């Protein structure tokens, strides 16, 4: 009902969210997949079954047992900055966002219950059971929205039936607080709130309306940092735990005294404590930091502590389930670990791993359609964009990673797949200050059995200098595969798979086939044409075109000045074109048939890439600190689509990912998104994509459907029983004939009665009873049609045996899909020879029931 309204609101907020974004018809730039899940503290629900966390513009609901994302709570139009269980109803959750709204959700069904419009960006949200109808949020100081100062305000949530509620009445509680949610915490029973910023701790008592401030000295003697990094309050005692920049934890007591407050210090962490959390009973305190060790301190016996080490990456947040059974830690590599009672890691929810930079391009694995890029140090990650889930990490470097500042490690810098996805080539390099550059080229073959890549060949020092580009020959036929690499040493090399000369039981391996140079210039880019008949290699200003079969230099193309930055062959109908961008802001298009420049235009293109499934090409242009996108066909002078200010900063990594299902949009400017989707990385390592209105609507519709559906986590068997019970209830109420489709099944209850009332020693074998029982639960076609026709007809059918057999054969064909069910019925027939005639008749009648419904269930 509010879809249209929401949609309108969404686009409206989008305009002021992006810096100076212009609407481009129906196409929007969105975060879709790969967003951070370690941004804010996750929340575990009361029953410990779900884990909720803010992820980009939505809240994700994960199952704590299966690690699967159950659904997204979508509706916010900007970054979600906080998730909080509603204290008065543990089945509802608040979320707040930079878009200036607080939303209330039913997270089990994924329904948006209410939207409270605050009117200014919300950075974090707090609530306490003692403050009914009030939430506490951190917003920028009034007056000036750009300032770095924040305040904690109380919002009285108006009681109103509307879905969209304006609640702009804010009453300030504390001024000058930190925008980091970890720096504010409610104390015992919500009687006070503690807020830390810089070197100051403030405690505000609600009853007395009085606040106390405690300051620490800027620095202690040994140069450690005393700044507060996080705050947690004991749930039963008046004790505030604070984490500090030097790794200390202080436990504050007696803080309702200006002078006679006191604190004890715990010190285990060697670096800043990033998160603190008391268990619900207050018996333990959990802390974590960059050491990636979860430390559990026994409250009041702090000398006793337990450790859970080797969690993989720095801990950013810690959360505990309300019953204290599950802990979960967020990690800086976009991961959430679920821990059972501080000893066992029971589940790991891994998002897209984001390092400081992606050195490999964004690549799509042709086989799994997964996005491939740098992940953990020395690894390639395979990330499914459709399921928004990390599939696996491939260890490329195969060396132990040692975390130490300033220590140079092997890094994966290049990766390439061949067209079928059977070969993967990777380049890793290590540059130490004193030593020479170490480069390894590795070739990996896909192993069908293990469904993963297996190292085939390692070529150490394939070139004498850094490898600048690498590509596979896109051989469509089953010719020998070929890899071309270009390097700063002035050569480009072709590598080919060759069987070894001496017959050992080693498989074929890769070796160098050809070394090419051009006037001693340094090659920068290489590219195969769509049919793999041509190889273009750029040597500074000159593009050389080679025949990969004969290694003959066919022609050279040049458009000085400016070295070539990117090379791309056109596809399909445009395969005669070769496009190149130069460092001097020029986009050139050469016609390879005439070997002449077809057209050129002046624009500063940071990235040029071709859609493998269409003629379309995408060019990201950097202009005035922002990046614009142009999508065009090389043969057409006019761009198909242009989008100004896609994001701020330059875009250097992007990829066309083929769609699973083609869209059938016929609008001119969104047609280019029909076959594949364009993903790109911003300079802040956000993975963005383009979405059309049609897609949005579809997503909206599917989320609506979710509302009608029963809980996803329910088993089919439960559904079965649930429906059955429902029908029985309807039986009892003869007036409820409104739901005409669900007609009562009188005989089913008879079957059950029979089953229950017969003495155990005269009962037939269980296999017979089982099928009978199951069938008694099914809804027959005849019963379904019973509303249209009379039940009489069924009785008539029962009388004539011949007709019955005919219809039985009809039945046979209709239940072919559910073979299992049919077999079980037949076996039941032979297993029970001593049946009474009435029983046989009953059985026959049952057999006639429609099994297709069950079959459909099994198929799904």
């Amino acid at each position: 009902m509010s879809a249209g309204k929401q949609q309108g609101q969404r686009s409206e907020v989008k305009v002021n969210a992006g810096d100076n974004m212009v609407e481009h018809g129906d196409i929007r730039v969105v975060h879709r997949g790969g967003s951070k899940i370690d941004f804010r503290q996750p929340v575990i629900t009361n029953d410990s079954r779900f884990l909720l966390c803010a992820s980009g513009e939505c809240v994700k609901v994960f199952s704590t047992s299966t690690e699967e994302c159950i659904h997204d709570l979508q509706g916010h139009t900007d970054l979600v900055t906080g998730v909080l269980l509603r204290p008065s109803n543990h089945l509802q959750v608040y979320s707040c966002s930079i878009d200036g709204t607080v939303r209330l959700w039913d997270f089990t069904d994924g329904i948006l219950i209410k939207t409270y419009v605050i009117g200014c960006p919300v950075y974090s949200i707090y609530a306490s059971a003692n403050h009914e109808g009030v939430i506490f949020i951190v917003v920028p100081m009034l007056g000036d929205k750009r300032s770095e100062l924040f305040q904690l305000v109380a919002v009285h949530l108006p009681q109103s039936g509307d879905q969209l509620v304006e609640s702009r009445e804010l009453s300030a509680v504390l001024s000058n607080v930190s925008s980091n949610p970890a720096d504010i915490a409610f104390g015992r029973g919500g009687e006070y709130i503690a807020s830390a910023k810089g070197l100051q701790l403030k405690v505000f008592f609600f009853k007395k309306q009085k606040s106390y401030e405690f300051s620490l000295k800027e620095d202690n003697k040994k140069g450690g940092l005393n700044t507060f990094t996080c705050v947690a309050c004991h749930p039963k005692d008046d004790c505030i735990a604070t984490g500090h920049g030097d790794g200390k934890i202080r436990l504050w007591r007696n803080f309702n005294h200006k002078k006679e407050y006191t604190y004890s210090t715990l010190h285990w962490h060697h670096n800043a404590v990033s998160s603190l959390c008391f268990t619900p009973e207050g018996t333990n305190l959990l802390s974590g930091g960059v050491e990636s060790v979860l430390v559990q301190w026994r409250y009041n016996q702090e000398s006793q502590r337990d450790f859970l080490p080797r969690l993989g990456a720095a801990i950013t947040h810690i959360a505990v389930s309300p019953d204290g059974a599950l802990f979960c830690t967020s990690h800086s590599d976009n991961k959430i670990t679920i821990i059972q009672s501080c000893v066992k890691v029971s589940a790991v929810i891994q998002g897209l791993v984001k390092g400081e930079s992606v050195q490999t391009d964004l690549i799509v694995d042709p086989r799994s359609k997964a996005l491939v890029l740098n992940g953990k140090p020395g690894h390639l990650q395979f990330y499914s964009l459709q399921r928004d889930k990390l599939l696996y990490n491939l260890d490329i470097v195969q060396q132990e990673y040692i975390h130490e500042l300033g220590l140079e490690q092997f890094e994966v810098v290049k990766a390439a797949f061949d067209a079928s996805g059977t070969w993967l080539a990777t380049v890793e390099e290590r540059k130490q200050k004193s030593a020479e550059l170490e480069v390894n080229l590795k070739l990996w073959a896909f192993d069908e059995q293990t469904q993963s890549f297996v190292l085939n060949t390692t070529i150490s020092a394939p070139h004498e200098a850094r490898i600048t580009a690498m590509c596979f020959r896109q051989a469509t036929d089953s010719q020998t595969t070929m890899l071309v690499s270009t390097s700063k040493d002035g050569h480009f090399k072709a590598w080919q798979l060759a069987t070894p000369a001496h017959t050992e039981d080693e498989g074929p391996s890769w070796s160098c086939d050809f070394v090419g140079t051009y006037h001693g210039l340094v090659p920068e880019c290489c590219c195969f044409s769509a049919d793999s008949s041509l190889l273009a290699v750029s040597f500074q200003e000159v593009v050389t075109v080679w025949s990969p079969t004969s290694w003959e230099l066919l022609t050279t193309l040049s458009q000085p000045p400016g070295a070539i930055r990117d090379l791309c062959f056109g596809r399909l109908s445009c395969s005669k074109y070769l496009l190149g961008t130069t460092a001097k802001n020029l986009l050139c298009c050469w016609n390879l048939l005439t070997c002449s420049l077809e057209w050129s235009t002046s624009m500063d293109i940071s990235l040029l890439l071709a859609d493998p499934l269409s003629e379309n090409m995408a060019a990201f242009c950097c202009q005035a600190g922002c990046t614009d996108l142009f999508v065009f066909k090389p043969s057409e002078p006019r761009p198909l689509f242009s989008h100004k200010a896609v994001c701020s900063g330059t875009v250097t990594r992007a990829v066309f990912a083929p769609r699973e299902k083609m869209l059938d949009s016929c609008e001119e400017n969104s047609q280019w998104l029909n076959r594949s989707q364009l993903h790109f990385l911003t300079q802040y390592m956000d993975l963005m994509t383009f979405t059309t209105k049609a897609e949005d609507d579809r997503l909206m519709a599917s989320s609506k459907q979710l509302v009608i559906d029963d809980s996803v986590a329910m088993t089919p068997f439960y559904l079965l029983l649930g429906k059955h019970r429902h029908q029985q209830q309807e039986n009892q109420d003869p007036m409820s004939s409104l739901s005409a489709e669900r007609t009562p099944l009188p005989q089913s209850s008879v079957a059950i009665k029979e089953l229950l009332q017969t003495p155990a020693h005269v009962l037939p074998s269980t296999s017979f009873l089982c099928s009978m029982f199951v069938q008694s639960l099914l809804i027959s076609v005849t019963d379904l049609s019973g509303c249209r026709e009379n039940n009489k007809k069924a009785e008539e059918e029962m009388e004539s045996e011949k007709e019955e057999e005919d219809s039985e054969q009809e039945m046979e064909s209709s239940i072919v899909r559910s073979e299992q069910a049919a077999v079980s019925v037949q076996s039941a027939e032979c297993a029970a020879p001593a049946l009474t005639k009435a029983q046989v008749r009953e059985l026959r009648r049952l057999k006639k029931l429609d099994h297709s419904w069950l079959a459909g269930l099994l198929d799904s």
Partner: protein
Amino acid sequence: MGEFKVHRVRFFDYMPSAIRAMAFNSRTERLAVARADGAVEIFNFSDNYYQEKVIPGRDGRAVEALCWVGQRLFSAGLNGEITEYDLENLKPQYVIEAYGGPIWTISCNNQGTHLAVSCEDGTVKLFEILKEKIQFQRNLDRQKSRIISLSWHPSGAQIAAGMMDMIRIFDTETGRATHRLLVERGVGASKSREVVVWSIAFLSNNTIVSGDSAGKVQIWDGLMGTLVRTHLVTKWDVLALAVSQDESSLIAGTSEGTIVQFQFLSSTVDRQDRDHEWVRTRTFKNHSHDVKALALTDTAVVSGGMDTQLVVHPLLDKVEKNTQEAAQRKIAFPHRSLVGCAKKAGLLLFQFPDHLELWRLGESDGNDHICCSALSPCGGWLVYSTVSSVRLYKLQHNNNISVNKVRPQQRIIQLRSVHQLCFSADSSKLFASSSQSSVVVVALNQLECKYLQTLRHKSGHSCPTAVAIHPTTNNLISVHADQQIFEFSLQQKEYTEWSRKLQKQGLHGLWLKRDTPVTSVGFNPKNPTHIILNDTFMFCIIDQSLPLPESSTILYNQMTLRSLPAPERTRQSHAFKICKNFQHVLSMSLLDDLSLVVVERPLLDVMAQLPPPVRQKKFAT
């Protein structure tokens, strides 16, 4: 300011002795500290923590415990004797044998009527305190093992005694043991070893706090005899406990050198009356070795131990910020000069507890320790005093030094105990401060000594730490524990103009903030306007001809002056020339030939002589 030829002397192997026991008298604000060599020192906390009195020790008289009873100070030791001190004459007044073997501790009840001592033979002996002495009253029930620690209930009706593996509570009326609290042994290897209850405290709400050798601080219910709570504080021993006067705070000293504070706090802030609990709060680490003695004053944690330093660590919640009290103090060296210097002859005399060194000059006879010594400027005379006698020697040094003992005059024999000794500049007179605040002047002729005159001095407000009379102007310069400087003209019998100006303008804040007292005053023989002062960390020349520093000027301006051009330099310079090039200075004297003798004793050298600590914190352990 002139340049000096500096003799940097570092061969004075002075080794302060470890602190064994401590007792704080909150009424008089005096702290008594007992050292391992038997010396007892009295610090006046109201007078800038000045070491007011030193009672020298004696061989074989190690003090194990100290106890104030009003103004009277008692000690007991492993020699089995109880000693009361004469704090006027700085010597033991009387010694009583307790006849119970070595005494581990001594404790007085709040009423000040009885002393309890715990003995090796398992008895607790009660002594009645009489006006001039103490008298044995009774034994409490004798136990099987030695009694290490004692604490009276504030009402005086009960005594808690810490023993091996247990704590006993005695009724003082009947002398019966009413409770027996078993203390758990340590885990692991120490399971087989007996646990020693090193320290115990009996609070007015019948809570007993114990510290033991298994590293635990345990809270017991004294009425029911049950254990309330155990705090594991260290892997080694908890050696000492101290409770604040209002019983809201408790400190425990460990052999790691840490002091752990516990506070009696309510678990919730609004219900102050209920749910109080002893909560471990702060940890102080001021010592490298065992903390053997502790005192908790209203404003500070006072601690001492094996590493010989007395540390006063202020509790910041109890003191005003940025005051004299808010600074932490470490008292490492005595507040008096242990070095004598013959300015003309260029000889140095080092005073050790049991001998003097002038290139190893004579050993003191008897078992008494030396309390003061002096060397005449000409180098011809040497005098030292013990608790019982004064000895004068004549030195003859041509090539090799010979020491002749002078048969003293009757008058000098009368000087039983002397606290300060001093020669006049021309080496003709010896001044000796004796009991009853009198000064005895003895004229030294070539071979005999003659008693001349006794001066009586009126008592000042703050204790003077160094005094000297100017050789030419006859002005008396005195520097006090509160860092004030006075100049008194002996001829006019009044304070001089300069001194009045100084008092009117006030001393610079930074000067007043220094935390070690000035230990000597000297003069420049070439320039009469120069006064030379030194404390442990600096030496200072006061030029009386220059203007005094304003409170806004930089006190330590020697470096900035050096960088300024000459006319600017004279404008900026002020009377206090301070040099901080030296550290841990024990003595400094300007010889006649303008060479400066600096006797340093780096603290690191002292530390190096200590045994290795039980534990040193290493990173990531």
